[in-house]
């Protein structure tokens, strides 16, 4: 509680400094706007800004869900055949040398300027942390658990649901938390490269037109979106992983 109060005071102070710093400096205000001006801008353009935010949110969420599903299906295939995992993993690691943001124009060309290219970009951004963390979690399961489940004749699906998934849960959620913010980054980067609507498009236009109030509003909603997605994952983790969350809280 005290921590929350400290954070609120810190951000309130930041806003006051920002407001006062730009009050009598019109050139600085032109570049970074100020809280009251940005708030007034939101009042006048709330419908457009919120619609853009919702659009980007939709792309990010679908991208995150798609990446999660693809990761789980791939991990399932790898569990059924370990040779595939050994084949895929080095490829995954090598694929990370590609700066993923450079793929955005390619997706626009391949999938068009609409939703598909943005979802594809968000999916690609999210995929790696989820896949690698889930793979690491599954790999780190002690051999004795395998022996135990084999001794009790566990079927492959029972092993996945009752052993692999629960024991890898902390790793899976580590990947999901990283990916929740990367999904927003992916969607926005794709929108920079061409979009009909979205926070990325707004940021691109704001930079071109030197529209500082639009930029601040777009940055604010991008941060909010990343934060909300992260919070949703955190809440799901608290529900599914209560056995280790409670342990962490209790020390």
């Amino acid at each position, binding site marked *: 509680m005290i921590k929350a109060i400290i954070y609120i005071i810190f951000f309130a102070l930041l806003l006051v400094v920002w407001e006062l710093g730009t009050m009598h400096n019109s050139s600085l205000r032109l570049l970074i706007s100020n809280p009251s001006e940005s708030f007034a801008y939101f009042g006048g353009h709330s419908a457009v800004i919120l619609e853009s935010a919702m659009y980007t949110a939709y792309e990010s969420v679908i991208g995150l869900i798609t990446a999660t599903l693809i990761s789980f299906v791939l991990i399932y295939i790898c569990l059924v055949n370990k040779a595939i995992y050994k084949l895929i993993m080095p490829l995954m690691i090598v694929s990370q040398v590609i700066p993923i943001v450079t793929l955005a124009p390619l997706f626009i060309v391949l999938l068009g300027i609409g939703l598909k290219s943005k979802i594809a970009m968000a999916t690609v951004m999210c995929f790696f942390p989820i896949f690698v963390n889930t793979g690491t979690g599954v790999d780190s399961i002690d051999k*004795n658990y395998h022996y135990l*489940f084999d*001794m*009790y004749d566990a*079927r492959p699906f029972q092993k996945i649901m*009752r052993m692999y998934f629960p*024991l890898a849960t902390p790793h899976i959620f580590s990947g999901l938390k990283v990916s929740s913010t990367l999904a927003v980054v992916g969607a926005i980067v794709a929108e920079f490269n061409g979009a009909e609507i979205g926070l990325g498009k707004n940021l691109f236009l704001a930079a071109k037109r030197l529209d500082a109030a639009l930029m601040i509003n777009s940055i604010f909603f991008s941060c909010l979106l990343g934060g909300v997605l992260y919070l949703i994952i955190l809440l799901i983790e608290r529900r599914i992983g209560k056995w280790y969350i409670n342990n962490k809280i209790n020390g």
Partner: protein
Amino acid sequence: MPLNVNNISFGYSPEKLTLKDISFTVEDGKTLGILGVSGTGKSTLLKLIAGFLEVPYQPVNDMHITFNNAPIRSAKFRRQLSFMFQEPTLMPNLTVMENIVLPFKLGDGGYNDDGDFMPEILRVVGLENFKDYYPAALSGGMKTRVALARSFVTNPRLLLLDEPFSSLDIGWKNKLYGELKSLQALNGTTVLMVSHDLDEIAKIADKVIVIGLDGSVIFEKDFRRHLFPVQDADELRKIILSNYQTVEN
């Protein structure tokens, strides 16, 4: 029908065998204590008998393990088997109760889930008031007792215990020795127990083997009674101490 272990060797090359020509028989309902200094392959032997490990190098043709004439890894063998690992190996996402009944939730439901058995087994391991706790909230000794309850719950005919009582205090040890004997008397369970504790082995083993540093059986004795004669315990101590000295040199 007894547990029959014949000519078991284990190693990754013929020059470096961890276990060498291990053979013994344990009759139904009896307890075999397996002793030896660290690194002599006692746990490996238990895992081989359980069928967890494959033998990568097979130096002797007639090596085999059977229990009630069922070969290892057969469904019949596994159905009669229970294994307690050195670490409790509990599912951290399951409560004490859920961990104990885990065997009933796996496979094709071949284990008979006798719900009436649960209060009794919880009482035996002293966890009646902790059945809804997650393992993270339990002490090391309590986790061991949950693992022990899980290994008892299927009424196994062959129970393999890898240093099961090492994290328990003397009070719990004595109580569980008694419960182990009751379980054996009730089901005719054959028990193989790896331990470093000579007094523990003295209390519950009917037969003892000692595995030496070369991986072979260097001492074997069938006592056929519960109390270990003091002079034989001393003899065992001497053998183990001589092995320690070999390690030191």
